């Protein structure tokens, strides 16, 4: 394999037939910058039908080209049809890299076509850099629970495949290019050959307490929490502040709070005015998911990494500090 035969970068635009998922647009915006460095052209790949207004949004993200794939088998997501489409396209056009949003379905099919193409696949990079000496992308991501950052490369094989979590990169469209190349491919996949078929979809009931992504205030509880009996005071504090309760991964792992409240790279990315953490150590995987105007950290360990991310820090017993906050906030209100 000659690496130099492989050129240009692709972004998969995940959609439900109505709207394009934000992650595809975020990836186009970020990769625009990378392609400007590498000299590659940036293509968005759309499988199945997407309304023109949504395609316009994709175009606004500075892409050089669009690849539309039509044919049977794209009405609903299936690993079989979607992986096949990328394998067929990649063999024909030889892209240097393919990026897929790290949604449940993106993570389902991207590693699969990487095997079909016998190439390297990475997941969850937080930064992308280019090494001009090797011509490789450096996928930089937290590892070992966020204690280290690892640089991962695909040194020999192509394309370089990466899944990236939603919210990792900013949606900051640079505008539509004067000329956008349009490629249309028909890659039909026999619906009868789809081995895992969609039968039905049952949307979750909306529970406002579980919708924390844009809450004005978030009280986040971490692994410092002794047990679920100690949890209620944090809920009360969140309520007093007109905010919502969130948590870090260990609390979900311990079965104390649901996954939808897990803040961080592998959970919800939050944007909030006031964020107060209690008993959170400050692993990169978590802090990467917090965009707060004011960040307050409370932890008993004075050396906790979380204090590097906060505006204001208090070292102390989390329960005691929380109770004190509740008392004083109540006193202020009355």
């Amino acid at each position, binding site marked *: 394999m000659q690496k130099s035969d492989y050129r240009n970068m692709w972004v998969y635009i995940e959609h439900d037939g109505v709207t394009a998922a934000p992650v595809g647009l975020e990836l186009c915006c970020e990769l625009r910058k990378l392609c400007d460095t590498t000299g590659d052209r940036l293509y968005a790949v759309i499988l199945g039908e997407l309304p023109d207004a949504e395609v316009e949004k994709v175009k606004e993200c500075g892409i050089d080209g669009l690849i539309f794939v039509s044919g049977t088998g794209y009405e609903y997501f299936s690993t079989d049809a979607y992986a096949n489409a990328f394998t067929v396209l990649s063999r024909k056009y030889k892209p240097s890299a393919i990026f897929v949003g790290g949604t449940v379905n993106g993570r389902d099919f991207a590693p699969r076509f990487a095997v079909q193409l016998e190439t390297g696949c990475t*997941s969850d990079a937080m930064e992308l850099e280019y090494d001009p000496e090797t011509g490789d992308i450096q996928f930089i991501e937290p590892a070992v629970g966020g204690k280290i950052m690892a640089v991962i490369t695909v040194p020999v094989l192509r394309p370089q495949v990466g899944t990236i979590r939603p919210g990792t990169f900013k949606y900051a469209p640079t505008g539509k290019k004067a000329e956008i190349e349009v490629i249309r491919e028909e890659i039909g996949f026999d619906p009868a050959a789809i081995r895992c078929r969609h039968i039905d979809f049952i949307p979750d009931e909306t529970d406002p307490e579980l919708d924390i992504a844009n809450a004005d205030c978030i009280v986040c509880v971490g692994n410092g929490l002794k047990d679920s009996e100690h949890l209620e005071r944090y809920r009360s504090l969140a309520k007093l502040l007109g905010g919502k309760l969130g948590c870090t991964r260990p609390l979900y792992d311990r079965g104390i709070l649901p996954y939808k409240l897990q803040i961080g790279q592998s959970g919800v990315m939050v944007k909030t005015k006031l964020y107060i953490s209690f008993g959170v150590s400050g692993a990169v995987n978590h802090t990467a998911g917090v965009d707060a105007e004011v960040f307050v950290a409370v932890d008993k360990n004075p050396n906790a990494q979380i204090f590097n991310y906060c505006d204001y820090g208090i070292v102390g017993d989390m329960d005691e500090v929380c109770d004190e906050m509740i008392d004083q906030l109540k006193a*202020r209100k009355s």
Partner: protein
Amino acid sequence: MLKILVCVKQIPDIDLVRMDPETGNLIRTGVPTLTNPLDLNALEAAVQVKERYGGEITLITMGPPMAESTLREGLAVGGDRAVLITGRPFGGADTLSTSYAIVKAADMEGSFDLIFCGKESQDGATGQMASQLAERFDAAQISCCCSIDGIADGKIRATRTLETGREIVEATLPCLITVEKENFYGRLPNLKAYLEAKTAAITTYTENDIDGLDPEKIGVPGSGTIVPKIYPPELPEPGRMIRTGSPKTDVSELLKLLAEKDAI
């Protein structure tokens, strides 16, 4: 009878792994190991299927000889047979080459109707292994499965957890499944099973025992990715620490600062 394969991994306790500041290498020596927690949820799902539909569960892992203890743990809670793939040439593998080695070794045991995997490992955490195994097994895949709703006539019906709801799917066998932990909390072994597992026979394959194994496709040579560098995360400068002497005065100082910033 369903033939079921469960893939498990022994991992270091990542809370105790440190980086050598001089060499930049990870220090794993003396770090206790455990079975990847999500793999135990996968095993539980397999055991529930076996209890409901009948079947035989084979556990498979790749790792150093000590990974045997993870297989014994699985045998104690419902596994029937166990396979260990071990040998230096398998070391340093990424998911591309690990999935190859596991499928080649599993082929030695015949074919499987269902393959269960944890959603991801706590140490590598790529979450890629399951899809890549499914491709190499030429199997259907159901990822993020939260319930198994029925198995009949060579098909499985199951529910997946997506971002905004649940998807009902139907897949043909063979099928690989990764499970959400919620409905598949692991069980504790009873004493008899625990004792039997301690001395149960384990099939061990080295690189010399697996038919048709291409040495170029395992370990480092078979990997698509490398990790040329690791480094500690760059930390921002610490924020302003409030140290007034007591929690009460700390909090009043904090609230004063937050009020000044219009944050409360």
